[in-house]
Each structure stands twice: as C-alpha cells, then as structure tokens.
C-alpha cells in the first residue's frame, strides 16, 4: 500500500512545480515587457534608418564608382566612392566633347550633355532632365514609379543597376561592383589591373618590372603598403592586440601564482593574511576592467602597454581566485611525501604542489589568453591601441564600412585560430 501522506506530499510538490512552470515564464515575459517600454522599443523602431542598413550591407561587399559632372564648370570625373585621390577612366564612361555617355550595363545608359542629362532605363523609357535658366524640368513616362523621386532641388533615380542624382550644382551616377576595390594593388602600383595568371607568370619567369627588385618582392611590398587598405598597419594592429593579451595574461599568471599560495587555506596557516589576500582579489575583480583601464590610461597614456596592464590587473584578481581554489583541492599525499624527506616550505611547493597543479593552471591560463584576445579588442578601443582602435575609427567615419567588414573578418579568423590552437594545447596538457 502507498502511504497517503507520501501521496499528498508528492501532490503538493507537483502542484508547486506546476505553478512554478507557469509563473516563471510569466515573470520573465512581464519583465521583458517592462524593459521594452523603458527602452522605448517602438520609438527606436520608428526612428531606425533602414537606408543606413542598406548602405552598410552593400558597402560590406561591394564598392561604387561615382561619375560626377560639376554643372558649373562642366568637368567630368570618375572616382572610387567619390574620393578624388582615386579617380580614373573606366572604359564604360565615354566622353566626346561636351557629351558623356555612361553605360550602366543591362541596357541602362546615362548621358550628360550641355542641356542637362538623360537616363534610358530598359522596360521603362527615358528620364529626360533639361536645365535652363536655373530651372530644372523632368520629362518621363507617367505615372512616375516610386524609384524616381522628383523635388524642386533634386531628381533621384535608384535602380538595381545604379543610382543617378541630379541637382543644380552637379549630376552624379553611381555604378556598383561586387568586391573590395583596389584590395591588392592601388592605381599607382604597376601591378594594378593584372589578372591572377598574369601575376603568376610575372612572379615566376617574366622579366623584372623594377630592375632592383624581384617581381615577387614588388608584389609583397605593393600589397603591404597599399595606401587605401593599409594591410601592413592592420596586421600590426592585430599583432598589437594579441601582444596586449599575451603580456597581460602571462604576467598576471606569474604574479597570481605566489599570491594564490597565500590565499589558499591549506598553504597559508595565518587566517588574517589569507582573508586579506582574498579580499584584495575580490576588490580587483569588483572594480572592473573598465575602471582600471581608465585609471591606467591616465597614468600611462594611450597605447598597447596600457591595455596590457589593464588586462594584467583584472586577470591577477581572477587568477588569484581560481588558482587558490585549485590549490585547495590538491592531493596532500604528494606534499606529505616531500615533507618526509625534510623539505622546507618552498621545496614542498616546488616538488609537491606545482607538478600536480601545473596542467590545470596552464589550461586556465590558455583559456584566459584566448578570451583576453577578445577583450583586448574592446580595451584597445578605450585605450587606443590595436585593432580595436582601427575598428572604432572606421565605424566613426560612418562610411568606411568595407574596412569594418575586413577587420571583423580578420578578428574572427584570429579568434578562431587561437581557439583552435589553445584547444589543441589544452587537450595535450590534460592528457599529459
């Protein structure tokens, strides 16, 4: 027979569980609702600029060539992203006298002429803009589709093939291309515009372009010192970020090791000292990396060393705590064995304790190093060093999104590689 009291206990327990299972999601939902109201989610949704998102995403993987005519002077220039330092003459732009013809591909053709400008869209017709006496008039098949916007000051046509803007002072056509412009060689390099097979044969057997330098070295140098992408500086910045993480983590581990002996209950007989050491670790961890970083940046100025010191400080607190926990869980037999030979404290620590905790500590340090390469990016943004600085700068200009994408890919690759490496080493450490 089943005990009646037991049944009732089980039933109340089940009842409580049921209520919990319902109440917990409700509480979470209510909290999220409160947060949504206090964060003004609706306001943000209405203020969000979706065209910015579109610009950002298209800039991530493509670039555009601006073909601009200054309407007052009549000069036509083609340049990358409208940057005058990178103007060139693409073969799809033909200028004959006053008339410029731009072939956007797919049958779309834009013509600039002294009277104004014209755009022929296949499947739609011609948008004809005539400017006379300071007035701009548009003739286009009616009704106007929503990708053409006409106002007193500006006529804008946005198509998948390219964009076209007409204002009184200038007329611009943008044509988009997939990929990153001038990623390998800029215009001033003799290697610009060469195909992969051409580059290959140049590197292997063709005569030298620069007499004093092999073609391969020339390629490496022109790539490394690319004036638009600054590959050399980017690689340096990545290295700096890893350097910050490395110096910070390793020196923190070196300092935390002896300190953790003081904080471990089985190593330090004096309770007061132990207690003080532990509170010191708690304090360092509690103050938080942000505040340490600010204080250190004041003393040492911006740069990678400040970042390394910030990581060093916070990690000393974290390592001190975890190391002392490891030390408290050691096997005392080995220490006893060493003690029986008459070893003093230092020798007991060296031969009784260190050998058995070393793999665990090393694996913790490696794990911290790996996660610190990530925080070094963030700390770099505050102290001004490494890839974090480049990233925040590129984001703040609000137009170099392709740089942001490039840096992000490099950071993700760096973290993946370090992840994989440290996993490999940790597995070997644990196996012995």
């Amino acid at each position, binding site marked *: 027979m089943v005990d009646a009291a037991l049944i009732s206990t089980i039933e109340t327990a089940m009842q409580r569980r049921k209520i919990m299972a319902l109440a917990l999601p409700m509480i979470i939902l209510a*909290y*999220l609702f409160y*947060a949504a109201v*206090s*964060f003004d989610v609706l*306001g*943000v949704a209405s*203020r*969000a*600029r979706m065209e*910015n*998102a579109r610009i*950002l995403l298209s800039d991530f993987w493509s670039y555009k060539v601006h073909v601009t005519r200054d309407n007052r002077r009549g000069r036509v220039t083609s340049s990358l992203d409208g940057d005058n330092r990178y103007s060139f003459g693409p073969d799809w732009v033909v200028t004959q006298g006053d008339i410029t013809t731009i072939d956007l591909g797919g049958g779309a053709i834009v013509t600039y002429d002294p009277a104004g400008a014209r755009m022929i869209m296949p499947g739609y017709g011609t948008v004809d803009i005539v400017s006379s006496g300071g007035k701009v008039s548009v003739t286009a098949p009616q009704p106007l589709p929503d990708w053409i916007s006409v106002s007193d000051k500006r006529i804008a046509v946005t198509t998948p093939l390219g964009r076209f803007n007409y204002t009184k002072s200038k007329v611009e056509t943008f044509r988009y291309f997939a990929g990153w412009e001038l990623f390998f060689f800029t215009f001033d390099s003799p290697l610009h515009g060469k195909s992969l097979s051409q580059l290959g044969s140049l590197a292997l057997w063709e005569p030298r372009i620069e007499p004093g330098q092999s073609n391969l070295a020339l390629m490496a140098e022109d790539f490394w010192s690319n004036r638009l992408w600054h590959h050399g500086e980017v690689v340096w910045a990545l290295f*700096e970020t890893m*350097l*910050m993480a*490395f*110096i910070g983590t390793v*020196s923190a581990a070196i300092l935390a090791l002896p300190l953790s002996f003081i904080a471990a209950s089985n190593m330090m007989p004096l309770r007061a000292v132990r207690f003080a050491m532990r509170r010191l670790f708690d304090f360092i961890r*509690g*103050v*938080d*990396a*942000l*505040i340490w970083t*600010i204080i*250190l940046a*004041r*003393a*040492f*100025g*911006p*740069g*990678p*060393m*400040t970042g*390394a010191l910030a990581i060093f400080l916070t990690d000393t607190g974290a390592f001190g705590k975890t190391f002392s926990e490891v030390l408290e869980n050691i096997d005392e037999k080995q220490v006893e064995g*060493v003690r029986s*030979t008459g*070893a003093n404290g230092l*020798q007991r620590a*060296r*031969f009784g304790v260190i050998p058995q905790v070393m793999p665990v500590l090393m694996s913790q340090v490696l794990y911290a190093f790996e996660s610190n390469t*990530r925080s070094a*990016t*963030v700390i770099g*943004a*505050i102290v001004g060093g490494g890839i*974090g600085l480049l*990233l*925040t700068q590129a*984001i703040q200009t*609000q137009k170099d999104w392709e740089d*942001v994408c490039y840096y*992000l890919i490099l*950071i*993700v690759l760096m*973290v*993946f590689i370090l*992840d994989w490496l440290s996993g490999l080493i940790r597995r070997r450490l644990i196996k012995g």
Partner: protein
Amino acid sequence: MADIALGPEPSPKLHLTASQQSYLHLVRRKRLYSTILLALLAALLATGFDLAEQRNAGGFLNGVPMLLAFPSEVLSEAWTNRANVPGLMAHFLPSLIETLNIAAVATLLGGLFASLLALLTTRGLAPFPALTGTFRRIMDALRAIPDVVIALVLIFVLGGGPIPAVIAIALHTAGALGKLFSEVAENADLSPVEGLASTGARWGQRMWLGVIPQVAPNWASYGLMRFEINVRASAILGFVGQGGIGHDLKLAMQWGQGRYDEVVAIFLILFLSIVTIDRFSDRVRTRLTKGAQHG
C-alpha cells in the same frame, strides 16, 4: 634548487640502477625542456613588453609614479565635496538601472537563443544532425565578434539608446552560453527523451519535457554567471557607445576637474552593484548546483 626530492644516494643493488638511470635521465630531460620553455616565455614577455612600451604614448617607468596621481586627485576633490556624493549616487541610480536592465534583458534573450542553439548542436538531441557543424560555427562566430563592434554598427542603423547594446550583448551571450549549454545537454540522460518519443511526442515536446527539466539548474547557473559578465560588458558598452552608467562616467571624466565627485559616485555605485551581484549569484549558483546533486 637542490634535488632533494630525488632521495638518497643510488643504491648498490644492480637491478635498480638501470631503471633509476632511466628515471634520472627522464627527469633531466623534462627539466631541460621546462627550462627552455620558461626561458622562451621570459624572452617573449620581455621583447613584447619592450615593443608595447615603444608604441605606448607614455613610458612604463614614467607612468608608475603617476599611477596614484589621478586617483588621489579624484579622491581629494571628492573628499572636499563629500557631502555631494550620496546625492549624486542617488542621481545616477536610473542610469545604473538602465545598465543592469541592458545586461538582464540581453542575458535572457541571449540565453533563450543559446538554449535553442545548444539543443540544435547537441549530439543525440539535434533534430537535423547534418547541420550541427553549421550551427556550431555560427556560435563560434557569435562568440568571436566583439560586442562593442556590433553595438557601434547598430548605433549607425538604429540610432542611440539601449537597444543596440542589448542586441550586441545578446548575440555574444548566445554564442558563449550556447557552447556551455550544449556541453551540459550532452551529459543529459536520454531515457526520458526515449520514453517521450515512444508516446509520439514531437521534437519540441521531447526537449521541453525530457531535456529542459534535467539541464535547467545547470543552465540557470551558467546564465547567472553570464549575467555577472554582462553587467560589466554593459557598463563598458555605455562608455564606448551610448547609454547607461558607462556613458555618464565618460561624460564626467571628459569634464575632468570639478566633476570628480560625480566620477567617485559612479565608481562607487558600479563597484557596489557588481560586488552585490557577484555575491548574490554565487549564493544562488551553489544552491542550484547542490539542489541538482540531490536529484
């Protein structure tokens, strides 16, 4: 250091000498390797430090005496205006709450997303075993991208406010917790799942009724640990981007002298809240994991 651990003089017994010799040989080689490794590490550290110092604006040795200059300047000014500090702490409380809210919402949303990702990548539970690798790579990428970057990019699209920070931290949390969650779920007992499967339960039901009750305490414990981390991340995001106590701290710091009482007030409430949250979560976590051991 003397080799005291190696014991007394080699004994005259012949059959022991060979093994003793080889043991000594092994120890010597191991020591040699460790010494080389240590020397290499020390050399790397020294050159790295030198390099970092060259690229830093101020040198290390010049900085050390300055280390206490800024804190003492701040503290002395705050001490003369110490009457203001409690009032200022109350004044910054709403910003602190915003920072905590960002962390909490991000942990919740990221945790939900992480649970889904974890179940999708756990061997034996995944509904699409062929896609586990893909989902794992997604988690890795979410972990790898720094939250500051996501937040700054989102500020460009969404404008200011706490939402970019929430999304950024939530994405990072999803990646980080997803990995830990799936490690927990891997050790879950599969018999309840099989039992549910025999009654014709769908995948969602099997997970909700068979797996979640088993892993909930450990997941909650990891979630709390992440919340501690996210509070700090949220403060940093405020400093670099916008919103919350971090932003107030940045404004007060940029103002410099004259508003150091504000700086101290912000430091204090940030410190106190972080310590309190750590303590609280420590206690809840021990209870959660101990409760799980009871069954």
